[in-house]
């Protein structure tokens, strides 16, 4: 049992992190073309709305809540000290979980039922969909069975995750966790491992720069004034468009 725990909660997370980091960088450098959200809205637009919108907003919220519990556990615990706030947070998070579940199921049914979508559905898409579905169901189940997750996550799991990232892995707490929680953790590592090989990479290229860049973009293959500058012999200006 110890060996298994050591592998699952020390070995596996490190493998996941390594594969994740190397994978996304390698793919970005050598296969940039494949970084795309691969939207299928053009082939089917109406049902997508009921799947994509709840799924994305829900998962964004859940992702940031998990991140917060990991990064600022003390504040979360402090926030939860008041039972009303704890209740609001838990119910809110659970609702978002339901939203994600609803979105994922809608998306899955949409994929399978529409013959037009099959040609743009890869095996990896299906795998990922099922993986996410399992993960969300696990999450909802454990939120329901092992109550007040926002607090125990912050006090038990965050230190564990922290120990992973500081390269002093300590799995005593995790090993004692109920099976559901262990499965949820393993699911998370699995998602990270698969991440670079799926369409999930599109979240890394979320176009936030759009907020501050000017609307129009004009590119010069050469900075036109400098390239003709007779004063320099060796120009250091590279073409910009590739």
């Amino acid at each position, binding site marked *: 049992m110890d060996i298994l725990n050591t592998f699952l909660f020390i070995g596996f997370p490190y493998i996941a992190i390594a594969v994740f980091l190397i994978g996304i960088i390698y793919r970005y450098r050598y296969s*940039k*073309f494949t*970084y*795309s*959200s*691969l*939207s*299928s*809205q*053009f*082939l*089917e*637009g109406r049902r*997508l*709305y009921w799947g*994509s*919108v709840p*799924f*994305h*907003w829900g998962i964004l919220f859940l992702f940031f809540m998990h991140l917060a519990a990991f990064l600022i556990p003390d504040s979360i615990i402090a926030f939860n000290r008041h039972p009303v706030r704890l209740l609001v947070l838990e119910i809110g998070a659970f609702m978002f979980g339901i939203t994600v579940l609803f979105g994922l199921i809608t998306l899955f049914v949409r994929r399978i039922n529409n*013959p*037009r979508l*099959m*040609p*743009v559905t890869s095996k990896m898409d299906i795998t990922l969909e099922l993986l996410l579905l399992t993960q969300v169901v696990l999450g909802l189940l454990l939120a329901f069975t092992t109550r007040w997750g926002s607090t125990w996550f912050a006090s038990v799991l965050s230190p564990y995750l922290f120990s992973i990232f500081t390269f002093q892995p300590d799995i005593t707490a995790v090993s004692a966790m109920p099976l559901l929680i262990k499965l949820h953790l393993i699911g998370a590592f699995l998602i990270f491992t698969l991440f670079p090989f799926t369409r999930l990479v*599109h979240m890394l*290229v979320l*176009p936030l*720069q*759009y*907020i501050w*860049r000017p*609307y*129009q*973009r*004009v*590119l*010069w*293959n*050469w900075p*036109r*004034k400098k*390239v*003709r500058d007779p004063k320099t012999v*060796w*120009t250091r200006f*590279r*073409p910009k*468009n*590739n």
Partner: protein
Amino acid sequence: MDVRSQISMVFHLDKCIGCHTCSIACKNIWTDRKGAEYMWWNNVETKPGTGYPTKWEDQDIYKGGWEKKYRGIGLKGAGRRKGLFNIFHNPNLPVIDDYYEPFTYKYLDLIESPDMDDQPTARPVSLITGKPMDIKMGPNWDDDLSGTPDYARHDPNMKGLSPAEQEALFQLEKMAFFYLPRICNHCLNPACVASCPSGAIYKRGEDGVVLINQEVCRAWRMCVTACPYKKSYYNWDSGKSEKCILCYPRIESGHAPACMHSCVGRIRYLGVMLYDADAIQDAVSNTDDDKDMINFHLNVILDPHNPKFIAAAKKNGIPDSTIKAAQDSPAYKFVKEWKIALPLHPEYRTMPMLFYVPPMLPVMASLTETNNKAQAEKMDPKAKVWDDNWLYDTSTEDLWGTIDEARLPLQYMANMFSAGDTKTVRDVIKKLMAVRFYRRWVTVGDVTEEKTNTILKEAGLTAEAADEIYYLTALAKFDDRFVIPAAHREQALEMMEFTGDAKGSMGFGFKEPPKRGL
């Protein structure tokens, strides 16, 4: 002042015969691929009609282009707020059925069919699912079907026409239509560029060609919504948007784009225009009245003969050869000198750099009611029944009158080419008519010189200008129609990569910087 050069185009609609050679030339070179089969970077529409994608001009549906905001302008269906908020689902995105479901036929069934009593057939199959399908729409499904209720009646340009005028357009005897070939306009204020959250779309500084960097496009699909001309297409297979590239590899090597080169009607002209990039912002945002947009648009384009502008262009690094090309540009002549070419839907405020000479033919003649009995009696009753009493009237008595009685109402043209302002279109048509009248005087001689001169004067043309228009319209050779700036082959490589990297490299077949190994 920031002078830049732009490859600009003029399509002379009177000459378009609707043969679709241009579309095929383009398709063969660029879009005969999976995911792009439904794209027609160049397409030819029958007008009045609904076009491709269906009713693309109706921005209440598609939400394309810019609109005047309290101060300045904003994108109608995209932009920072809408673009990012709707990134998970874009409510204004057209779907494939707005274009058509691409299909092919199972030709192999014809060959491989076993011996049987009936002829084998090649069934249509969808190019998306591969399954048999019923074809409900196709490229140019409405070709020449202008009068049919399905198409012309739903043309968004019909607004502002009285019901009687509209009805007249649908009468078989009176029906008139023309063709509208469309490619990307390579706009000066492109909505597609502004809408792209990733910043994948850009305008090339050197020649103004608008391109989508395929490695940066992430399928946020905002450009498809934002382009009011629906000339940015989503490749459903590769998950990237694509658009007309104005055959830039051909232009760089001095060839005309494929659609232009192959144009059977020789309706297409291509040339350089110089413009002032600093003036664009004001031009698109200054006026509330869409009708003013044409003037603001044309004011941004600079006179390439003016020494002041030439000096400014040189200062900006525009080569002499490009300035020379701008001076010889047929586009400049049509658009600025003679003012007979107009942008399509200037009210979208993207400042399209493709201009159209509006068609005159349906305008030139009117139908008058006559008694055709004598004519009818001469005909062999078995061959044809001649029972209508219309005469195609090209009399010259009341010259400008025919414009208003035209079979294709002026308001319709104005809705397309001048934001509904009939005066602008009217002036153009007058000029075109004056040239015809002038040529009639030169070649046929059944009109007086005096009348010819009055008409030229009224239209605002000189005899020399009329000669030139006639030459460029009817006789122009390849090199007159396409004035492409010298390609600067010596710089062509530098456009793609930094040649300094390759200096000192050796060998054939591979190129690597001569860098010392580890």
